[in-house]
């Protein structure tokens, strides 16, 4: 774990999933890590720009990596699977091909943007707090035991696969979320779809195909007795949380299972307040029993 990270919240945490950003900032403060802002960064392209305009994608990625370098950090902290994969893919492409990096840098120079020298790594919050010193540090701040809370981990795709680009853990049998759930004093629930797709990338363009994917983790997690699902990805979160009622209509089954961002679960165990974890910003609301198990101190009249 680093002392300083170039913080890349990405689009969703900055817009519709602001509760992820505020929870991350709160947990970072508890962990005593500094999040350095990068005010000029763009969207990572979410795989979409990569697919539509691959050369443009490489350039905007290099610009993001260059800004991290200029901020004096050697590591970007991400809180989204899609940002993690897209930035890492671009980083590898740029570092492996000196001619490409030179051309991209010439173009960046020409438009007055920061260039990239190849000295940045991209790490997801999950990786930083689930192993090594970061894990020890998290355990020391996890003062509250979320005993009795059954948590289904949902990894999502782009933090596991392709392993040659991500490679933090076994992509078929990951354990990092389980380790953190246990460190929170909660009980991890196992189910096969935890490593599968939530359908989010195609939920607008191919809603039925996406819902067919989304029902799997929802059904399996509930059948396995989970109280909540936790995910390290705000896109998976949006899919599991906001599209949950559509998945219910699609499958003819009621779900009503709350979805937590990883930073919210960690935050609850670290005693962070509702005003920062902002569970009220979820479409699928926490039930009173889950709220009680999360033991989040709430301040009356807190603004959503």
């Amino acid at each position, binding site marked *: 774990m680093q002392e300083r990270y170039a913080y890349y919240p990405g689009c969703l945490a900055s817009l519709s999933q602001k509760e992820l950003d505020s929870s991350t900032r709160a947990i970072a403060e508890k962990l005593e890590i500094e999040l350095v802002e990068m005010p000029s960064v763009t969207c990572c392209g979410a795989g979409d720009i*990569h697919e539509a305009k691959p050369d443009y994608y490489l350039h905007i990625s290099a610009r993001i990596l260059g800004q991290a370098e200029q901020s004096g950090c050697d590591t970007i902290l991400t809180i989204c699977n899609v940002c993690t994969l897209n930035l890492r893919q671009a980083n590898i492409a740029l570092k492996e091909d000196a001619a490409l990096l030179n051309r991209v840098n010439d173009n960046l120079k020409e*438009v007055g943007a920061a260039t990239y020298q190849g000295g940045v790594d991209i790490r997801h919050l999950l990786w930083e707090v689930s192993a090594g010193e970061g894990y020890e540090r998290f355990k020391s701040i996890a003062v509250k035991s979320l005993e009795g809370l059954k948590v289904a981990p949902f990894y999502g795709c782009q933090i596991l696969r392709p392993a040659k680009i991500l490679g933090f853990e076994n992509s078929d049998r990951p354990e990092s979320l389980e380790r953190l759930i246990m460190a929170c004093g909660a009980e991890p629930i196992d189910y096969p779809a935890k490593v599968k797709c939530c359908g989010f990338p195609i939920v607008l363009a191919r809603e039925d195909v996406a819902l067919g994917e989304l029902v799997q983790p929802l059904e399996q997690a509930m059948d396995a007795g989970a109280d909540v699902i936790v995910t390290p990805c705000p896109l998976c979160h949006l899919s599991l949380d906001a599209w949950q009622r559509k998945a219910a209509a699609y499958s003819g089954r009621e779900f009503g299972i709350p979805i937590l961002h990883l930073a919210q679960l960690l935050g609850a165990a670290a005693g962070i307040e509702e005003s920062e974890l902002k569970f009220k910003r979820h479409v699928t609301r926490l039930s009173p029993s889950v709220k009680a198990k999360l033991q989040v101190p709430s301040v009356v009249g807190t603004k959503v």
Partner: protein
Amino acid sequence: MAAIENAHFTTLKGAYDQETMEATLKVRRYDPETGKSRFDTFTVTIPVTATVLDALDAIKDTCDGTLSYRKSCRMSVCGSCGMRVDGGAALACKTSMRKFVEAGHTITVSPMGNLPVIKDLVVDMTPFWDKIRAIKPYLDTKDADTPAKEWRINPEDTALIHKESLCILCGCCVSECNSMESDPEFLGPAALAKAYRFVGDARDKDTRERLRDLSGAHGIWDCTRCYFCNQRCPKGVDPRDAIAKLGAESFKEGFTSDAGAKHAKVFVDSTYKGGFLRETELVPKTIGPANAIKDIPFALQLARAGKVPNPLSPHKAKDNDEVKRLWKLLEKEAKGQPRRATATHPDAVQEG
């Protein structure tokens, strides 16, 4: 003939002279006559260098001759022995048993997913081949003069489709495709990787028609980017990357009317306009204003949770003029370039 048989026997005998180990495998069985499935557990003695396929052979030879599976080359070339090992599709002949035995782990062997099971580990590949056929897996040079000798291709042009050319049609990628589970009509990773092998081939002259077909229903925009195909492919084809290349090629050809392409375009335009994604534009521009209106009750659920950003004051990144200038520079650069490397004319490359 006798000499060949003897040679084979000697090799086998040599193999079994090696140090051996005892391995236990749980194997999924399916009997088409009764329609019933079950798991059988077998323990066999195999050489320490044995693969999963060798272990299955040992089961068939010494425990149960009715066990059915496909095999041929035993060296990761023919693509026959795709099956699931502990739930993940792999070539049985490329998967070593030793690490499982040393870990004291009993592996579960089951048939590939997304394809109907015929018997035990044998799946019906018909839907797989139908999709390969559907993408026209052969060169179409249109009316170009057929060279007298072979039609050679430059190493630079070959490099563009090298990875996709490595496909051995084993079906491991299809087995795990999350979109195909949900939409069995999706062309899927193997057929799309094969399609790119021809779209990217400098000698093929059917590019536009191919991309028009591939960018429609059940085509490239069905891919949910789960990356299971890249993870499972035993030959490094990276089918998902091939699908992304097809997306880029279809954009170059102007095939952007599919909802998936429109979705991608919103991301491109958003970075240009302000840096971050414009979430409020994503829905109407992807599915069209009429469908967006139908989705208003859903949008209200999101709005109540504070999940709809104010469309009148979209997020603006600092210094985004840099990005605008970058976009214009790259578009200008792209205009000056040929769509892709061009095939060398057949007459120019014939030897002689």
